[in-house]
């Protein structure tokens, strides 16, 4: 099966990576942070826009979740983060398709509560806050994650969705974790084969 090496995920990933930065970046342009910082005020009119483009989250909420997911799994020197992996699109889809109406209601309420928390602390909205200010709030949530308060339930939900969305994405599977499986191999790999031999 050596002829199949050209089809290995690794090769595809390299190809894909070359174009990913621009493509993904472009898709996020219409809802860049600067434009959405004041979007909360115009939520009422934006809801229709969200529905008309088939989303559950309003553009302001979408940008909020995009930033929030990136705080949970950020880009680092090793690989892209939740933003690059478009985790927000996955989150929106899971909420949009859920048969559980309360899941959507709770999520929206969670976003509101989180925004209120950070405003209480820094006087700014989440998207307008600095990374340190955001991290301070998320640390409080993380330290109290088992609470039954809606804030904590929301943090559990967004954290799980982000983990699920990120580690099932191309960036998560291939770039971050360098997963080597799901490919045809001639011989089973084991400990008696030095791992170095399987690097390309």
């Amino acid at each position, binding site marked *: *099966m050596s002829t199949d090496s050209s089809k290995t*995920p690794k090769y595809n990933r390299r190809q894909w990576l070359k174009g990913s930065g621009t493509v993904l970046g472009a898709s996020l342009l219409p809802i860049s942070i600067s434009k959405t910082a004041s979007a909360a005020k115009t939520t009422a009119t934006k809801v229709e826009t969200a529905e008309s483009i088939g989303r559950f989250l309003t553009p302001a909420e979408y940008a909020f979740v995009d930033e929030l997911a990136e*705080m*949970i*799994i*950020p880009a*680092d020197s*090793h690989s892209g*983060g939740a933003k690059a992996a478009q985790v927000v699109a*996955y989150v929106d*889809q*899971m909420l949009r*398709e*859920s*048969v*559980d109406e309360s899941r959507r209601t709770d999520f929206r309420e969670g976003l509101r509560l989180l925004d209120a928390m950070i405003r209480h602390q820094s006087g700014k909205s989440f998207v307008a806050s600095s990374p340190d200010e955001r*991290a301070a709030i*998320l640390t409080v949530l*993380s*330290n109290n*994650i088992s609470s039954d308060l809606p804030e904590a339930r929301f943090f559990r939900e967004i*954290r799980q969705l982000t*983990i*699920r*969305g990120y*580690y*099932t*994405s*191309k960036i998560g*599977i291939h770039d*971050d*974790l*360098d*997963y*080597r*499986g*799901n*490919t*045809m*191999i001639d*011989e*089973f*790999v*084991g*400990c*008696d*084969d030095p*791992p170095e031999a*399987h*690097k390309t």
Partner: protein
Amino acid sequence: MAEPVADLKRTYDAVVIGSGAAGGMACHVLTSRGMKVLLLEAGKKLPIEAEIRSMQWPYDHPRRGQPPADHHALTYPEYNLRTPPYGVGFEKYKHVHSYVGRNDYVKNIVVDERENPYTGTNYAWVRARCLGGKTNIWGKLALRFSDYDFRAKSRDGYGEDWPISYDDLSPYYDKVDLYLGITGVKENLPQIPDSIFQRPTKLNCAEVVLKQSLQKMDVTLTQYRAGVTSDGLKHNKYRSKCFGRGACERHGGCDIHAQFDSPTGLIYPASDTGNLTIRTNAVAREITVDPNTGKASGVHFVDSLTLQDYNVRAKVVIVAASTLESARLLLLSKSHFYPNGIGNSSGHVGHNLCEHVMGGGLVGQAKNLIGKSSTNDDGRPGGFYIARFRNLKTKNPNFIRGYGIEGDAGQGMFPHIVNSSGFGAEFKEEVRNNRGSYISMGAFGEVLARYENYVDLDPQVKDKWGIPALRFHYKFGDNEHRMLADMKQTSREMFEAAGFEVISADERILTEGASIHEVGTARMGSDPKKSVLNQFEQSHDVKNLFVVDGSSFVNSSCNNPTWTIMALCWRSCDYLADEFGKGNL
């Protein structure tokens, strides 16, 4: 392959009910002996490769591999708290599946629980209605039973011995190995006799560490003995050799059929003899009886789509509908001759239900593997198996019989995330560094066969086709609970001795039924008062009636049942064909 249409006017030599491991094997053996066979399957013939999509990446699936939002797979807590039809909170789901239906690739293979209700004690009953049944998604651990199982009563005094010994079945295990393919390593262990193995998989580094550590405790860890052809099968054009894609480990099923499944392994080759007719969407509701002779005369079935009733006639009736469905069908087949159900003069049909108790689930971490570069650890059909070690040479004071342990180590596609609250750059780096360092395992122990553990027919509840539902009366007993305590403690000791840090330990005993290894509801025996079938899985009461699935088991062993179901079925069908040829049936 043109498929012949069922001819309901003729009398077939044999009708086989169910197309899983047992039904497929019956078709293979009987058609190769020249008998004209009709196979009835309750479910559809699925375009299985399109269902399984073994190598699809999560990001190429519209929901990352998850089923549509209106499908729900039951969880263990839900099984423990509720019984069908599950009630408040479940209305929002269009389909409810057993716990195996967690991914999009199996949602059409497992049944809709609400169309197929059951009552009584809590039980995680996993059913697959489609050609091939559960073999399409089985865990593929292919172990032989031994005289520790067949002669268990002689050793410890509990239950009954089987009417056969290992020497009777050994030649048929060999046939199954050679016809279907199995990968493994010879260990010369009496409690899991060796098969005729093809090319083995390999252990990864953490598994080798555990194996070496266990040797000091006189416990054997061996490569997963998978019902997978690793070298290919020249006699079977429907199956490829294994290419180590690991797909079977991720979501079950194998679209190149290196992993054994009944359709490609047994049924399609049987069709190629010209002696097999397949009727799908045929839900058997009764085995009919000749009013003059009392012999089985055929099967009364309902078309699952049109709801129309049909009768088919056959000289021999072979029940292979799975342990619980077979018992249900025997109990449903009440007549003047057999008021308690056909083949049930002993009163043992539905009784002695047993399976495997699952517990002791453990996750450990090999610290020396943290931060290492990636390895392809899931490019193989399975990890490791630790053979039974209790009550062999010595007696455990707390319980009889034993358990085996399945597990694997290394990196999977989705990372194992132990940190339950972290976030940010540190969290991400931790997940990355730990990705190849975890090892996990869980135990499967023998549940004692007890007459008090049984199923019968619910007097009120019926399934979608109007057929009375099964009612469970089944609970783990003291021996299982004491065994679970040992599973938990010993598993932990094994990890600690190997130098693994125990990261998490599952304290639960999994819900009754979760093993999907149910057997025993029409057990074999030489005494017709205490058993339903003779050593050839032939009814003591009705000589042209055979029950060739796990129903016939006298105990559950702690070894996985599929290979033994097929070896027994091959042996029984050889006998059946001999007797048929002599005109004795």
